[in-house]
């Protein structure tokens, strides 16, 4: 059993490959999380515009990308765009897909956060002479982000986990590298190692979230 799933020789041999995968996963996360947050912020700010011409297309946009499994979006970009003469790297496809998909989730969360800030705050800020943009940036957003912090963190956890989809379009992140090592060695050990790395990497965040969520749900009564 240990020889099969936790073979020390294979761990030693595949370690450099797996490690490079880990670094790429971290790098990828550092790119796609801010990208998604940025997309979400745009959506959340646009949601403040009450004109139906903005409101309805926006809602359709968000629901559209929430209904779409991210992997389908990724494959659509990666396998579909070359037919339109647009050949993008796996990495670029991941970036675009995440911007659209996770941006929609972040957008929903931030919108809920902005809604949770009482209207009097904006009025007070405006009456002191701040512009609408200033009131949003300096008064509303900081409170909004604090109010939905657990949801933002939980979505970030999901985004980091989702970077494993990059393996499908040959982005050399942790899962992809582990699978390469597995097919070279005919042994599942590298995948087990990758799973352990994912767990160690994300466990602190899971613990933190579980505490925050328990408190949030219990606090509603």
């Amino acid at each position: 059993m240990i020889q099969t799933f936790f073979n020390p020789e294979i761990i030693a041999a595949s370690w450099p490959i797996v490690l490079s995968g880990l670094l790429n996963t971290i790098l990828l996360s550092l790119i796609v999380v801010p990208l998604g947050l940025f997309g979400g912020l745009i959506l959340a700010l646009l949601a403040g515009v009450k004109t139906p011409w903005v409101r309805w297309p926006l809602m359709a946009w968000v629901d559209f990308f929430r209904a779409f499994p991210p992997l389908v979006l990724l494959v659509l970009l990666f396998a579909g765009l070359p037919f339109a003469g647009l050949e993008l790297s796996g990495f670029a496809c991941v970036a675009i897909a995440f911007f659209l998909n996770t941006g929609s989730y972040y957008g929903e969360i931030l919108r809920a956060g902005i809604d949770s800030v009482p209207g009097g705050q904006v009025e007070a800020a405006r009456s002191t002479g701040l512009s609408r943009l200033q009131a949003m940036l300096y008064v509303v957003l900081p409170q909004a982000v604090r109010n939905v912090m657990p949801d933002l963190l939980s979505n970030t956890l999901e985004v980091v986990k989702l970077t494993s989809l990059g393996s499908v379009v040959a982005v050399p992140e942790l899962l992809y590298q582990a699978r390469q090592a597995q097919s070279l060695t005919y042994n599942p050990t590298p995948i087990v190692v990758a799973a352990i790395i994912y767990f160690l990497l994300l466990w602190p965040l899971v613990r933190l979230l579980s505490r925050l969520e328990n408190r949030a749900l219990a606090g509603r009564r």
Partner: protein
Amino acid sequence: MSPAVSSWDRFLETFFNAKVMVKYWPDIAYGMLVTVELAVLVVISGLAAGLFLALIRSLAIRPLNWLIVFVVDLFRALPPLVIIVLIYFGFPSIDVTPSGFVSTWMSLALVLMAFSEEIFWAGITSVHKGQWEASRSTGLSFGQTLVNVVLPQALRLTIPPLTNRTIAITKGTALGSVVAVSEILGQASSAVSNSYNPSPLILGAAAYLVLFLPVVVLGRWVEKKWSWKR
């Protein structure tokens, strides 16, 4: 004038090729069936296992609870695709050969189990202690208290987060395409490589929208309807 029209025509013929779509429609329809089948299995088994673990946890047996918390944390931290790959490519080494369908089902059910256990547990702990004491003092047993007093209150609280999480995990059925499950994405991808035309992928994308858009809208409604007013 004419070049613009012809390039538009070429675009249509590439991405919305009627002939290709008609030819591969049965494949995609079959894929939809597999996706729905997989989704229903995942939702039922995942939620049942999650509720079961939450109930065991309420018995407050220390070592058992540590184990439950560890298992829940494990499946919350691991990406579903990693679990699928681990089961599909790892188990054959010990002479157990789960199909892609079973691997995907097991993985997603385990993930849903972990997330729903957390939510069910938070719901159960949110019911005030006095409720337990009051119903026990009227002569109800532990089990009766749990089923008739605590759970009805706990479940109501868990519905919005549970709905959203279930929808998100159900969309993971597309991951099955990585281990050769013939669900929508798998069917569409193989149709694309057979026909050298991306139209089946567009058809597959439309199939996902048909299945999941109503669910997402329903989720939005449920969230509004059951949410607690602050």
